[in-house]
């Protein structure tokens, strides 16, 4: 299958190889949570809710010099076209939970909140490839909304290599092509990589190109997230009557 049209250079959905899907972020979608956000990358739609910092529920897990970060990832049964009921805590979601937790832990200033717990819940409402990245982006927004101290904004984006072309932000069709798929998470300002995963194989020089493309994507997302947060802050300001 041709993922990049050799005549026009467009991908199946009309994007150029280094185009991202349309992204949208919204803050404060779950009133009960301390912080929440909705994040969309094209048809992928993810909701994140953050509780905490709060008292550690299971005292045995309490850490004395830093906060305990917990993460739960799940996919809504209606998120994919066919309604298969997935058991909670299957291998894939356990793995993604872990990935998100580790990525977020790297940017939360956990040492400021000893003996407390931060819960991050992410749920995929609609899946169309790149859920991992969307979850991390949503979690970042939600953490910021909850006012949890962070080093920097973590953003994530994926890139792949199909039809001998590096492609930014794979959608489901491209993702299921079975080609290499690099997911990168970076600390936007400090330019540090906190997450790097790849399916399949790539020669090292091509890998570098693909990863660079993913990093560019992350930066663009970070720029957008900053705008969303700024907008939100302005809103809060006006509410306070400042």
């Amino acid at each position, binding site marked *: 299958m041709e993922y990049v049209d050799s*005549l026009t250079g467009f991908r199946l959905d009309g994007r150029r190889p280094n*185009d991202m899907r349309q992204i949208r972020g919204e803050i404060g979608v779950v009133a009960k949570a301390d912080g929440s956000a909705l994040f969309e990358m094209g048809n992928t739609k993810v909701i994140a809710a953050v509780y905490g910092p709060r008292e550690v529920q299971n005292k045995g897990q309490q850490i004395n010099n830093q906060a305990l970060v917990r993460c739960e990832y799940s996919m809504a049964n209606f998120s994919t*076209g066919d309604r298969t009921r997935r058991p909670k805590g299957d291998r894939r979601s356990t793995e993604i939970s872990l990935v998100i937790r580790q990525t977020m832990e790297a940017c939360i200033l956990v040492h400021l909140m000893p003996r407390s717990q931060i819960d991050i819940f992410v749920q995929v409402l609609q899946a169309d490839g790149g859920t991992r990245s969307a979850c991390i982006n949503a979690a970042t927004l939600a953490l910021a909304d909850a006012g949890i101290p962070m080093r920097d904004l973590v953003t994530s984006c994926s890139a792949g290599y199909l039809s001998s072309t590096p492609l930014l932000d794979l959608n489901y069709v491209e993702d299921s092509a079975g080609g290499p798929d690099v997911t990168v998470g970076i600390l936007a300002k400090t330019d540090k990589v906190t997450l790097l995963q790849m399916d399949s*194989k790539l020669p090292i020089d091509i890998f570098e190109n693909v990863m660079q493309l993913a990093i560019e994507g992350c930066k663009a997302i970070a720029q957008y997230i900053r705008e969303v947060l700024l907008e939100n802050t302005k809103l809060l300001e006006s509410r306070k009557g400042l």
Partner: protein
Amino acid sequence: MLQSKSFAKKTKQGRVIKVVREHYLRDDIYCGATFCKVCDTSAARLSASASATILIVDTNVVLNQIDLLENPKIDDVVVLSVVLEEVRHKNLSVYNRVKALCTNPLRKFFVFSNEHHRDTYVKDMIGESPNDRNDRAIRVAARWYQIHLGESTQILLITNDRENKKRATEEGISAETVESYVKSLGKPDLLDLVVLSSSVDVPMEDVEDLRPSKKKIIYSEHKPMSEVTSGLLHGIYHQGKLRVNRYNPFEAYVGSESISEEIVICGRANMNRAFHGDIVAVELLPQDQWRDGKSLIIDDDDDDEEEVHLVPNSADDVPRFENPVQPTSGSSPPVSSHPPGRVVGIIKRNWHSYCGSLDPMPMPAGNAGVAHALFASKDRRIPKIRIQTRQLGNLLDKRIIVAVDSWDCLSRYPSGHYVLLIENDINSRPFSSQVLACLPPLPWSLSLEDLANSNREDLRHLRVFSVDPPGCRDIDDALHCKPLGNGNFEVGVHIADVTNFVLPGTPLDEEASQRGTSVYLVERRIDMLPKSLTEDICSLCSDVERLSFSVIWELTPDANIVSTRYTKSAIKSCAALSYVEAQARMDDSRLMDPLTTDLRNLNSLAKIMRLRRIKRGALTLASPEVKFQIDTETHDPLDIGMYQIREANQMIEEFMLAANISVAEKILKHFSLCSLLRRHPSPTKEMLEPLLRTAAAVGLDLDVSSSKALADSLDRAVGDDPYFNKLIRILATRCMTQAIYFSSGDLSPSEFSHYGLAAPIYTHFTSPIRRYADVIVHRLLAAALGISRLPPIFMDGPQLTSIADNLNYRHRNAQMASRASVELHTVIFFRNRPTDTEARILKIKSNGFIVFVPKFGIEGPVYLVAKDKGSSDWVVDEAHQKVTKAGTKITYGILQTVRIHMEVVEPQPNRPKLQLTLII
């Protein structure tokens, strides 16, 4: 900036699910006109002048008139992406041709992604069929072009769809049909390329039919696709590929999976317009219509004579089943082993272009020079094709290429139009300038850089030599043999390092991969790589320093491999010998020079290796190769004879086989999923059937349970004359399929084996100058040694498979072209030399037999009965493969020697052929 609109569509994948995909509409898609002031023109391909006419073509135009579009006189064409997509779904080969047009820098074809353009995207309307929607999209795009480029530029929508044309005119878009547009150009030669549409779009009276009175239904209507599909499901119809008998174009076979036997289809009426190679649906005829053999040879208005051919080399070239020839009397029950059938529908057409000439006919008067002519293909399996031309005088007595357009049930012959192309799909055009730009400058010589490369071993001190056919200019292999202190030998096979010059991804590489192989014709060669590489830079000529890729073994005196190593190297060949010279040196016991000693050592090693290989079950198959001596001035063949195989040939062959096997092992070890290997499937029982039948007829018992058993029984098959064994081997060779290239990721290791060589794995490494497969293997080996990185193409499984498929295809075509060339020269040779010679009977038929002429390696029919005489008084004994003249003792049996007379006759103009007659 992106605009997003998602659309929903339903796809069937076992069950119906809803698929939602994003569809981005953009505002940065350019019109492609060089004069446009608004758009970015860096990628523009259309005309530079604003007063030009820009054509927008409809899908049906692309599908039916691709030959016209390929004519360089048609330019400034916009191909919309909606059209491309429709073409791709309907006909992949046309799609590829359009794609080639759109990428050709010499042509002004531009692809406009109307589906992603903000202004030209159209949403499905409720109740609108996809076809109507696409037509609307085309019209919207045409209008956009008109508005975008302004009034000075004429935008012309070319469509043969009347509805579409009508609507376009209503909407104010100028639209034309192909015919009227081409007529307006005033170029009669273009008009010939126009396919006259007999489809529903044009009413029947528009189609010129000169003989309305003859309008009767000749063929039965094809069943609709839905009925065919359900028929296939219920087992009423059988699906398979139609193979027309090469010896009798009115008889065809369909091998179907749903029925274990082959279905035989006799007569044009039952074949029902199917062509050779079509995938058809067949219905079995009821029992009472099972006819006996006599009626199988149908005399239509066509000739059904058999032609003299070269001996096919493998089963692929041979019509797999003989005529189910029956005894003469009609009273005997039909014992045909194959059930007869009738084509009810054609699932996939295999139409392409055919090479041949027009049947002679008088020049018609009037009718604006339009003439209908019958075209007879060179390939007799193809029926005559009716074409319409305006330049009959030009085309008569010429070899032309014709493409088939349609065949409706009212006409006896399919209709087509003429194009010009090349038979066997071999690219003999000169190399393009981009390709030549990749070549290193001449004169090339070994540079210090090459030597300084730590991956390249300097082997110039070794006594390396090459042995090839005389006059060989593209020497790609050389050998050396050095006795070691411990009694062992160091033997090296040095192969021209083509990959040092042909780098992956360059135009040179792409061209070579397309060509796939060099084609060897009599006295001519169509190269895969440009001449400077083929004959100079890569060729391992004597006394020059060349780069090579070496496989070096340490062999014990009993030819056991102690160690193997692979390296890139630099060598200097000390002698380029011919087989004859090498043989003479080995045979001349007075010569004791080091080179001759090396040759003798190699030869003794090769003999042991050969013996071991044969013990393992490798088949020694025979294929008669014909050799011509050509007059240097007139290029007419002077003499013809069989190629003689010497010990020296076998020696070289042995080491090349060993090198190939060693390399195959190495690359498979490193790249188990993406190695290019070569396999030879074991023949099935049915394929060996003709061999067994023949063997049984002469009282020979062949064991075909394994290649080893077959090899042994072939060895035992010694008749009373020396040529008997060779004949049996030739027959055995034809039962085999051809070996094929494949990617190791596609098959399981048990399927890798090479039947003929009895090797578990095999590949091609030793001829990179003339085979692209070897180039790939060189790259794999270099990557396995860590010398270079594996090109990314190897990561792409399907792409590697498609390369392997292309190589197989090119390889086969090259062989067919070589055979055709030899056949042509045979005819030229015998034109002025009627000859009497000896021949052997290969196959008995009711009206004659097929003979093989060992001296010239040709085979053809000998008729016992003149064609115009109806019945024969010859009685065929199928079981013993004998034919006896009734009432006499004159009997001919299979493999018997007969004397024949060979002569070239020309029953039809421009189609001379060799005729064989029996001398009693």
